[in-house]
C-alpha cells in the first residue's frame, strides 16, 4: 500500500477559540488537492501546523510516513511552503535567494545551480536574476518565492492562496508550474478562494468549516453530496458551507490567524 503524502489525525489548535477542531484528513501521493473554506475556517492554521510553523495542541501529522511533530526535520526536507504573502529578502537578488534556499535545504551546489537557472527561465525571471528583489512587483515576488519552494524538488508542495494579487499571465504561469510538478509526481495542496481554479485543477477537494473537514471528494462526489447534479463548485461549496453554518452556528468569526 502506498504511503499517503499527508495524513492528519484528530488535530486540534486553539487560540482565543478553537481554530482547528479535531481535523482528520488524508492527501494521496501525486494528487492535486484543493483545500477550501470560508475566512477563519482553519485552513492556514492547519497548513502552518503541517509545515512546522505552529505547534498543535493535540493530534498527529505525517508527511510521507515521517512524523512531522516528532521528526520535523525529515518532514521538512521533502516539503515546500509558499505563504500567501511572498516572504523574500528585498536586498538579495533572485539568484542569491535561491542559493540561500538551496543552502538551507543542503542541496548539492551544482545541482542547485542548474535547477535555479532552469526555474528562472521557466518562471521568466532570468532577465531579473541579478537585480535586487526590492523593486519587484507582487507577481515577480510570488514567482521568486515559488522558485525557492521548488528548487529542492519537494515531494509535497503546500501553497496558501498562491494566486492572490497576480495578473492573468502570472497566475497562468503559476498554475502551469504546479500542473507540471504534479505530472512529475509531486503532491500539491493549495488553498484558494478562486473556486474556478480549484474546479479546473484539483483532483480532490476538501472543505473545512469551523476547524473541521465537512466535505471531501472529487467535484462529482461533492455535487452528489450537495444534490446539485451539474452545479458549479461555487454552488456546491456555498451549499455545503451554509448547511454547516446552520448546523454548527456562525463560522469564520475568528480573526484570521487561520
Amino acid at each position: 500500500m502506498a504511503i499517503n503524502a499527508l495524513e492528519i489525525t484528530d488535530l486540534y489548535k486553539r487560540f482565543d477559540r478553537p481554530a482547528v477542531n479535531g481535523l482528520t484528513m488524508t492527501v494521496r501521493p501525486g494528487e492535486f488537492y484543493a483545500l477550501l473554506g470560508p475566512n477563519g475556517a482553519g485552513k492556514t492554521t492547519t497548513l502552518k501546523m503541517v509545515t512546522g510553523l505552529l505547534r498543535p495542541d493535540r493530534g498527529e501529522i505525517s508527511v510521507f510516513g515521517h512524523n512531522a511533530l516528532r521528526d520535523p526535520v525529515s518532514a521538512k526536507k521533502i516539503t515546500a511552503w509558499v505563504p500567501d504573502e511572498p516572504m523574500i529578502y528585498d536586498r538579495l537578488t533572485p539568484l542569491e535567494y535561491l542559493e540561500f534556499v538551496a543552502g538551507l535545504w543542503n542541496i548539492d551546489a551544482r545541482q542547485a545551480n542548474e535547477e535555479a537557472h532552469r526555474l528562472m527561465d521557466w518562471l521568466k525571471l532570468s532577465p531579473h536574476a541579478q537585480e535586487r528583489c526590492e523593486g519587484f512587483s507582487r507577481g515577480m515576488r510570488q514567482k521568486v518565492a515559488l522558485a525557492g519552494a521548488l528548487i529542492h524538488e519537494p515531494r509535497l508542495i503546500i501553497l496558501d492562496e498562491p494566486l492572490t494579487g497576480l495578473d492573468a499571465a502570472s497566475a497562468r504561469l503559476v498554475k502551469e508550474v504546479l500542473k507540471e510538478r504534479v505530472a512529475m509526481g509531486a503532491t500539491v495542496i493549495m488553498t484558494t478562494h478562486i473556486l474556478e481554479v480549484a474546479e479546473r485543477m484539483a483532483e480532490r477537494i476538501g472543505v473545512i468549516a469551523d476547524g473541521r473537514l465537512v466535505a471531501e471528494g472529487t467535484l462529482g462526489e461533492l455535487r452528489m453530496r450537495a444534490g446539485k447534479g451539474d452545479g458549479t463548485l461555487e454552488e456546491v461549496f456555498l451549499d455545503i458551507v451554509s448547511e454547516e453554518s446552520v448546523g454548527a452556528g456562525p463560522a469564520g468569526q475568528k480573526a484570521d490567524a487561520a
Partner: protein
Amino acid sequence: MNQPASTAWLARHEIRLAWRDLMAMTTAGKRSRERGALILIAIAAIGLHFLAWGLVNSPDAQKQTQLDRWITITAMLVLPFSLMTSQAMESVTRAFYSRSDLDLIVSSPASIRRLFTVRVGAIAVSTTLLSLLLGAPFINMLALSEGPGWLAAYPVLLSFGAVAAVLALSVTVALFRLIGAKRTRLAAQIVAALVGASFIIGIQLAAISSMGTLSRMAFLKSEMVRNLLPAPDSVFWYPARAMTGELLPLAAVIGFSALIFMFAILAYSGGFADKVIAAAGISQSGKARPIRRRDGNFRRQSVRAALRRKEWKLLARDHWLISQTLMQVFYLVPPAFMLWKGFGSSGALPAVVVPVLVMASGQLAGGLAWLAISGEDAPQLVATAPVTPAMILRAKIEAVLGALAIVVTPLLAILAWASPREAVICLGGIAAAGVSATMIQLWFRSQAKRSNFRRRQTSSRVATFAEAFSSIFWAGAATLVALGSWFALAFVALALVVLVIARSLRAAPTGEFA
C-alpha cells in the same frame, strides 16, 4: 475647519501623524500606556528643570565674563545645529524615499508645492523640538533667574531648525544632481552621520592636539581661540546675543532664517515631484539596482554557512546600519587620537578608550542581533527549512559576532600596539558586552520588519534598558580591571544581575516557531 488640501490642512494632517507616531514610539504601540507615558515625561521634565537650575546658578556660571558667555552660548548653539542638520538630512532623505503616504498625496490633485512646504516645515519643527527636549529646561531656568529675555531662545532655536532643514535640503538636492537618486540615499545617510558627529569630534580633536585634554570648553575659552575670535560688535555673535533677548540680533536671526527658508521653498519645491518620482523609480523598477554578476556556480556550503552569508550580505546592504555604525566608529576617533598622542603612557587611556570601545561594541552587537534575529524578513522560509531551530540561532549568533569582530578588530589592533594589556582587557569587555547584548535580543525576539530597525527600541522597553545597562556595567568592569581596581567585580556582578533579570522577564514563547 481648514480648506481641504490647503497648507494648514496638510500641516494638521502632518501634526496628527507625528503626534500618533511619537505616542506609538513612547508607548510601544499600546494606547493604554499613553497616560503613564505622559506622566513619566512630565516627571522627567521636572527633574531636568531642577538639574538645569543647579547648573545655571553654579558659581562657575556666575563668574563668566560677557565674552565667555557668548563663547559658551555660541558653542551650545553650534552643537545642536550640527545635530539638527544631521537629523534634518535623515528626514529629508526619508521625505524623498519613504513611500508611505507619498504615492497617495502625489497622485491626488493636491498642490505638490504646498505638500513640500509643509514637509520641510515639519522637518524644521521636529528637529527643533528634539533639541528643545534638552534645551528647554535650561532656557526656562535662565529666564527665571536672569530675566524673560531668555525666552527669545525659543524662536532662535526654531530659526536654527529652519536653517538646518534648508541646509539638509540643499545637500540632498546637490547629491541628487551629482550622483543621482540611486546613490543619494546611502550618501545622504553617511553625510548625516558625519555632520552629526563632526562638531563634537572636531573640537575634541583640536583640544587633544593643542592642550592634551578632552575638555572642549577649556579649549574654546583658551587664549589661542580668543585671539582668533571676531570683535564683540561682529554679526558673528548675533545668534548668542539673540538668545539673551537683544532685539536687533533677534530680528536679524529670525529674518535671515525666514528669508532663506522661503527662498529654499521657492527654489526647490518645483523639482520635488521629479525627485520623488526619481526616488520611486529606484524601488519600483527592478532595473535600478543591478548587482555584480557572478557567472560561476553556487558555492558549496553548509546550512550554517548559508545562513551566515545571507546575514552578512543583508547587513552589508543596509544603508541605515552602515551610517549608524560609521557614526559609532567616528565617535571612537578622539579616543583613538588620544591613544596615538599618548602611546599608552597617559593614565586617561583606560578611563577613556576602554569604556568607549566596550560600550560601543555592546550597542553595535545589540543592533546587529536585532537585525539578524528579530528582523528576519522570511521567517517562515527559515522555519520550514529542514534544520533545527538551535542550528539557525547558532548561525545567526555567529553572523552577529563575526560582524562585530570585523568592526572592532582594527581598533583593538591599534590599542594592542599602544598597550597590549589594555587590549586584552578590552577584548574581554567587548566579548562580554557583545554576547550579553545578543542574548538579550534572543530572549526578547519578536518578529518585525527589517525596515523598522529605527524603532527597534519600541518593541521591548525591558530589552532596551537591559542592553544599555549591561553595556554600561561591562564597560565599567573593563575600565576598573584596566585601572587595577577590585571594584571591577562589583560591576561584573551588576552586569550579571541585569542579565538574570532580563532572562526572567523574557517574552513567553507563543507556540509559533516562526
